[in-house]
């Protein structure tokens, strides 16, 4: 099998530690970036990820447009968008749960469509407009979908919530008067183990009309 195992090397692992002082996250990020820099020596081909010449398997320089901001990073071609967001860019809102395009916790919006970021390669997300949960609110104001989640008490443990909010945002962005059936269909790619569906549906339904 691969000489590099587990999949994403040292930067892929559970990452729920408190973010204070010298956290495990800060440490492993440093290792990841260091490794990337070593891999890039002699490569010097940042523009080639989009070309018709093969790139990788060593890290490749890519640019991602996330929440209106451009991010440059080096990733192996196998790195998924969720791992790039969480482990490289510290955008840990989207959650990696099933990692198999089923549960929806990793949902982000790409070019206006909700997508499973666990199942899109970061290298393939180049040139596309990526929206994550971090980009939809400010310090002072929540997005209407978030506000209605609060209003309808639409979460319990909260782990699926960022994905559901983004799936909900994709619904209300495209339709200001969705029926409850539209909402159900639009949320069908997201699973909540606590079973908060009733509140979530009402929240998205009301957010569209807010």
């Amino acid at each position, binding site marked *: *099998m*691969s000489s*590099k195992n587990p*999949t994403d090397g040292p930067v892929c692992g559970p990452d729920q530690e408190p973010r204070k002082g010298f956290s495990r996250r800060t440490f492993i990020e440093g290792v990841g970036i260091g490794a990337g820099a070593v891999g890039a020596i002699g490569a010097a081909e940042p523009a080639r*990820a*989009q*070309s*018709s*010449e*093969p*790139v*990788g*398997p060593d890290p*490749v320089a890519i640019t991602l447009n996330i929440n209106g901001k451009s991010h440059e990073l080096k990733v*192996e*071609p*196998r790195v*998924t968008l969720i791992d790039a967001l969480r482990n490289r860019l510290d955008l840990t809102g989207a959650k990696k749960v099933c*990692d*198999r*395009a*089923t549960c*929806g916790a990793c*949902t982000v919006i*790409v070019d206006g*469509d*909700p*997508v*499973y970021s*666990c*199942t*899109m*390669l970061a*290298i*393939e997300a180049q040139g596309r407009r990526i929206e994550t949960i971090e980009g939809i609110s400010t310090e002072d104001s929540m997005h209407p979908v978030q506000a209605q989640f609060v209003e309808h008490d639409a979460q319990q443990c909260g782990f699926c919530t960022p994905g559901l909010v983004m*799936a909900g945002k*994709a619904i209300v962005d495209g339709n200001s008067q969705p029926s409850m059936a539209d909402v*159900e*269909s*639009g949320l*069908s*790619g997201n*699973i909540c183990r606590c079973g908060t569906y009733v509140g979530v549906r009402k929240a998205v339904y009301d957010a569209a009309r807010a």
Partner: protein
Amino acid sequence: MQNFEYIAPNSAIAAAQALSPKQGLTAVLAGGTDLLSLMKERVETPTRVVSLRNIAALRGVTKQGGGLRIGAMATVQDLLDSKAAAGYASLLQAARGITAPQVRAMGTVAGDLLQRPRCWYYRNGYGLLAMHDGKALVPSGENRYHAILGNKGPAYFVNASSLAPALISLGAQVTVAGPEGERSMALADLFQIPSSASERENTLEPNEIVTEITVPSASGWKTGTYEVRQRQLLDWPLVTASVALRMRGNRVSDARVVLGHVAPIPWRSSEAETALNGQAANESSGEAAGKAAVSAATPLSQNSAKVQLATIAVKRAVAMAG
């Protein structure tokens, strides 16, 4: 997943030339909704992934010569949004069965056709024929979702495509590109029941890619798809049936009946078609067609329920067409 080199060529021929003629060494990436999961499970371990995302010619769902052209990179959502596809009721009904908006937005129509079987033995590394120590695992194992037709062995999985039954019943053709050029065939000929471990469930060469699917005009045809489901959303159907009926007066003059999730290939049922030809399209002919469709069924130890589900799927698909 195992690391790989990545290439995103600008033409279908260049993509085919970037693929290895040897099975398993390289993989084609379109929407990725199936491939990435297979790679994470190490069921697929390509050393090179060839992405089709930069090939503009593969995009779009358009009218073409009175019919429909679906580019290989057109997503399920593209199909649902397309005005050109409006007259293809059974195809749109099948596409609506793919519910997660994330899968609709990412997954392609061609990828739906070429997704690998969902057989849990295959997905857990026992191979397409689910063998262990020279023994077939399915017949004496967990087989409630497996084949009831075309299951004489060594293949027992079911073809997982949602759209193939409708497309085949509509007379679709598929065009594929290899390193030397393109070829076209009836969509039904894209699929095969593997007879040995060296064969796959489709007839593509390892260095061929699908470039487009074309569907003749459905004018004059009544069409319908019915899926029998355990879950209404997100999951694959248990059984699906698509029918296309050409009418002469109020009688069926030409019936096409294709079932999904019952066999290792989308299963065209000549028995059901014979039962419908010359009849009015109604509940009793639909029921007769459903019974005819399963007349040769050979259920495994746990999936005899699928025989009844297939009967009902055909009957209701006829009702939806009528």
